[in-house]
């Protein structure tokens, strides 16, 4: 007799896994030659203006709207849509700099209405995960304690299907979701501007630092604005993850964190 789950470790059924990390993790090993091609990246934000210079055609998209009659309180409408604020376009443009050939999907969760927005964020994440997206960029958060369990369940599910959830932390020293959980890549702005440089923070919940201060970013109407915010740091890390996944598609979230930590400027 065996306890539950132990059958998975029978020698006959145990799956082989690649021992993929080299002794010394370098930028060359991690992403040289990769453009993020073949990697599905979801920008869960305000929409993406696909006509913005350099963003090019999107692989797909959907708008999530609150709907009290829907089983989970929100409904997904697949298809093209515009960017309501400009921020989703900014994130997409940043990802394109680091991972120019990634398959970008726009999932618009911002702008319809404020009430129930946590439910809408969650439904956007579920849709992205159901489509097999490997990287989810979430430059947004909620501080509502009611949503702790909901987002915990979703990011656990993402982790188990090897999806990398990249979240901007908010600016207040209080828990916000989904950036709070150990399974996500939580990001804040550091003082550099080089999109290929990052820092690792040894005192999380914020784990990674990336450019987000005084940046020239894409916005509505094909123009750029000069902006600051942790929300611009997250897509830098999402882009780097897509670039690395383009070359090493089998990496798990915990391996990806190991790789990013090794590539950080403050790694010795």
């Amino acid at each position, binding site marked *: 007799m065996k306890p539950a789950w132990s059958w998975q470790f029978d020698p006959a059924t145990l799956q082989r896994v690649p021992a993929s990390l080299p002794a010394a993790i370098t930028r060359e090993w991690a992403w040289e030659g990769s453009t993020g091609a073949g990697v599905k990246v979801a920008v869960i*934000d*305000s929409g993406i203006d696909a006509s913005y210079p350099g963003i090019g055609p999107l692989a797909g998209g959907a708008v999530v709207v609150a709907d009290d009659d829907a089983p989970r309180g929100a409904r997904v409408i697949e298809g093209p849509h515009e960017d*309501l*604020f*400009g*921020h989703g376009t900014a994130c997409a443009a940043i990802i394109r700099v680091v991972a120019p050939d990634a398959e970008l999907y726009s999932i618009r969760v*911002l*702008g*319809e*209405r*404020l*009430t129930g*927005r946590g439910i809408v964020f969650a439904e956007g994440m579920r849709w992205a995960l159901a489509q097999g997206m490997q990287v989810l960029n979430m*430059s*947004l*958060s*909620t*501080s*509502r*304690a*009611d949503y702790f369990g909901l987002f915990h369940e979703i990011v656990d599910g993402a982790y188990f299907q090897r999806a990398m959830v990249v979240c*901007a932390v*908010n*600016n*207040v*020293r*209080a*828990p*916000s979701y989904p950036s709070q959980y150990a399974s996500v890549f939580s990001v804040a*702005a550091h*003082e550099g501007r080089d999109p290929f440089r990052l820092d690792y923070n040894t005192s999380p919940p914020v784990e990674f630092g990336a450019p*987000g*201060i*005084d940046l020239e970013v894409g*916005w*509505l*109407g094909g*123009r750029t*604005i*000069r*902006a*600051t*915010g*942790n*929300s611009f740091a997250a897509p830098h890390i999402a882009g780097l993850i897509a670039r690395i996944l383009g070359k090493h598609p089998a990496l798990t979230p915990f391996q990806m964190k190991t790789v990013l930590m090794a590539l950080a400027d403050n790694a010795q």
Partner: protein
Amino acid sequence: MDDRDPPRDVLAELTQLAADLGPVLRPRDDEEFLQAIVETARLVFDAAACSIALFDEHEEELEFRVAAGSGAAATIGMRIPADRGIAGWALMSGQSIAVDDVRQDPRFAADVAATTGYVPNAIMAMPLESERRSFGVIEVLDRRRSGGEGIDDMELLALFARQATLAVETSRIFSNLGQAILESVALAAHGDDLRTALEQRAAKAPRAQAELAELALLFHDLGVLGPEERRVAARIADDFLAYARKRRH
């Protein structure tokens, strides 16, 4: 009428007393707090203006409730849709943002100039959020003093946002609690006993308030039991609170 409940005329007097004392006893008007916060923030940042807009959930709009500095008088009362602009994005995304060249957006410049007579070049916006809800945005326009790079300014603004959040949430809790008690007393004064009145209040309150009203009802019931039962109940509530706090941290 049950002899545990006060007579009807006492309840009527209580209602009158509560109505008279309410405005005196409640915390200062939250707008006074908020006005003090934006005035302080404007001085600290040496900014052209600082304002706080609160979310109107019926209209899905942001309404500027207080402002200090350039265009302040015209800004107060101004309503903007929550589904666009820098303030709208901060509110919706729960993220802070600073933009330094908003004048380049001709639509923005024209809209704002027509309303307030002042067109800023730089905006810093931060959402006002508690662990219960998102309810507004604090904005600083054209700050001249900076703690260093933009992110330091945000750390500073976060302190003001925290004060505004505490002011609004405290005021809200008092007004909800006061309203629930007053409504219950008023119902009781019209012939129902206090227990029935609290039950009715609990039944028609929105969810968060309904829980509070149910708790109030339990306390009412506990109140008429003996001291031993009350001690046990207090111990159980104490243990539960300790457990809940531990679980949250």
